[in-house]
């Protein structure tokens, strides 16, 4: 692996580089790569450590005798609790899937006209979306809470799903990507008699598959890691991330179970990214902002 990476650095491209410089770059990347990866590797290892290894002094990084005990404990612990673990998982999956699919559908439907046509209001709407990238959701937290309580959405999953459907980043990336679709394709469809909705659904959507996956990779981890915030109070509506918080609050005896839940929370988004990486990069190439 190491020699291959070194070779990759020395591949003669454009301007040549000396061996020393490529070695230094390799070392630099290795050090920071380790900084990024070690906590995650540590988390994976922790999930498989038996209890006596979790509390070894001095603490050990890698697991010696991997077991599945923590996962069995997790199931047993949650099986005894008032709300079973499966309930938290179902809640999280429901929020994540509905939120992600809905976000992709709504923002692509809104992005298509903005990317391809000029009509009254199109420019101002898009610049409002761009401007809203420049502040975080915390700014609107107070009014949002009031809106939720007026709508009666406090303590429902809608309070998490609905606002997430219209996150500005998704629309922005989708619109930038859609601009690449050749106009001739849309014109041809129009001549064949397709209306706008058909064009959107049968021509634009299949052509922006990389952008769907990108929106998914941005939206999914956020909802997957959502803990219900201030909106959800009922235990049976809460999410997996919230359950993790409760388990780890159980103190030192729950360290192993906590590590198991953390692994579950972590693995899903990372797997999704591995699958969709090349598509995501394709979308990001068009992510530029034109001042």
């Amino acid at each position: 692996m190491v020699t291959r990476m070194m070779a990759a650095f020395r591949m003669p491209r454009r301007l040549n580089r000396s061996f020393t410089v490529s070695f230094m770059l390799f070392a630099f990347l290795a050090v920071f790569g380790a900084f990024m990866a070690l906590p995650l590797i540590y988390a994976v290892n922790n999930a498989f450590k038996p209890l006596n290894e979790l509390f070894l002094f001095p603490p050990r990084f890698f697991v010696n005798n991997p077991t599945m005990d923590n996962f069995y404990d997790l199931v047993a612990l949650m099986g005894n609790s008032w709300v079973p673990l499966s309930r938290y998982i179902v809640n999280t999956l429901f929020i994540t899937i509905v939120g992600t699919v809905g976000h992709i559908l709504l923002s692509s439907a809104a992005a298509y006209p903005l990317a391809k046509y000029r009509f009254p209001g199109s420019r101002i709407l898009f610049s409002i979306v761009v401007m809203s990238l420049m502040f975080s959701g915390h700014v609107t937290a107070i009014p949002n809470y009031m809106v939720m309580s007026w709508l009666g959405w406090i303590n429902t999953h809608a309070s998490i799903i609905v606002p997430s459907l219209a996150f500005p980043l998704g629309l922005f990336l989708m619109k930038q990507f859609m601009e690449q679709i050749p106009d001739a394709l849309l014109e041809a469809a129009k001549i064949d008699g397709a209306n706008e909705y058909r064009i959107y659904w049968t021509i634009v959507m299949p052509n922006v598959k990389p952008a769907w996956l990108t929106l998914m990779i941005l939206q999914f981890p956020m909802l997957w890691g959502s803990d219900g915030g201030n909106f959800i109070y009922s235990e049976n509506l809460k999410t997996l991330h919230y359950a993790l918080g409760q388990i780890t609050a159980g103190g030192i005896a729950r360290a192993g179970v906590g590590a198991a839940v953390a692994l579950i929370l972590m693995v899903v988004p990372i797997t999704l990214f591995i699958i969709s990486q090349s598509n995501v990069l394709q979308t990001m190439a068009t992510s530029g902002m034109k001042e």
Partner: protein
Amino acid sequence: MQAETTSKAAVSSLVQPKKQSRLANVWRELKKNKHYYILMSPYMLIFFAFTVVPVIFSIVLSFFYFNMLEFPRFVGWQNYSRLFLNDDVFMIALKNTLLFAVICGPISYLACFLFAWIINELSPKVRAFMTLVFYAPSISGNVFFIWLIIFSGDRYGYLNGFLIKFGFMLEPIQWLTNEKYILPIIMIVQLWLSLGTSFLAFIAGLQTIDKSLIEAGAIDGIRNRWQELWFITLPSMRPQLMFGAVMQITSSFAVADISIALAGFPSVNYAGHTIVTHLMDYGTIRFEMGYASAIATVLFAMMLGANKLTQGLLRKVGE
């Protein structure tokens, strides 16, 4: 002759309605484009209800006293004067937030670019792997509790154990309850999480740079990689640089979850307090909604100001 007059009449009848009212014109335009409005409406409805209107509402509310029970009472600039003159904790929060913005913002931005630049030189398979390594923390997101174990105050904490074992110190340090260490630790974790969307945007941007530009540059006398970086690479990915800046600035002003997860809420002597946690304090615990809105408005102004300022600077890149 006859024909001429009729054509004139026809022309005038064509011209007349246009003059008649601009409103009808607008209406016609709207009707022509109605499909586009229908396509956009679900998104825009939610977007306006949960993003645009709340911003305006928040600004308005910041001039009122409102506790969710009584009818709001207009108090003018009182919330702001209290915020800046009478609220010591807010001053700590402001200081911490600015520290995050000034330290984490630029470092994370440069790190995103630097790593993207180095990774871009690798062969495709290694590049994909390294991209994953650097990007993974930002999507495994809420697993920053791992850092709790690393920085745990007893000797089972990974860092403490390591330092004691190798004799750097004799007694464990309470990393997360010692004012001295809280802020730097939050910054480290924030940086760990910050190679996100902009990092991907930079990698993608670097891959799309026109190779012929670089060849042309070599002929025009570009001698080293720094010149190539400044005169070719950076200017041709300026749009991505803009986008990345917006992402990094916004997130570095919004640090809160990490602070709460690591240092607690409130943290010891407010050492990890930020504007956002201050906002949560007043908005979700004390229910002083008017005051919390004033905090939100200040945050909004700071984020927008920092973004505009940075965009102005980035426009000068490679000129």
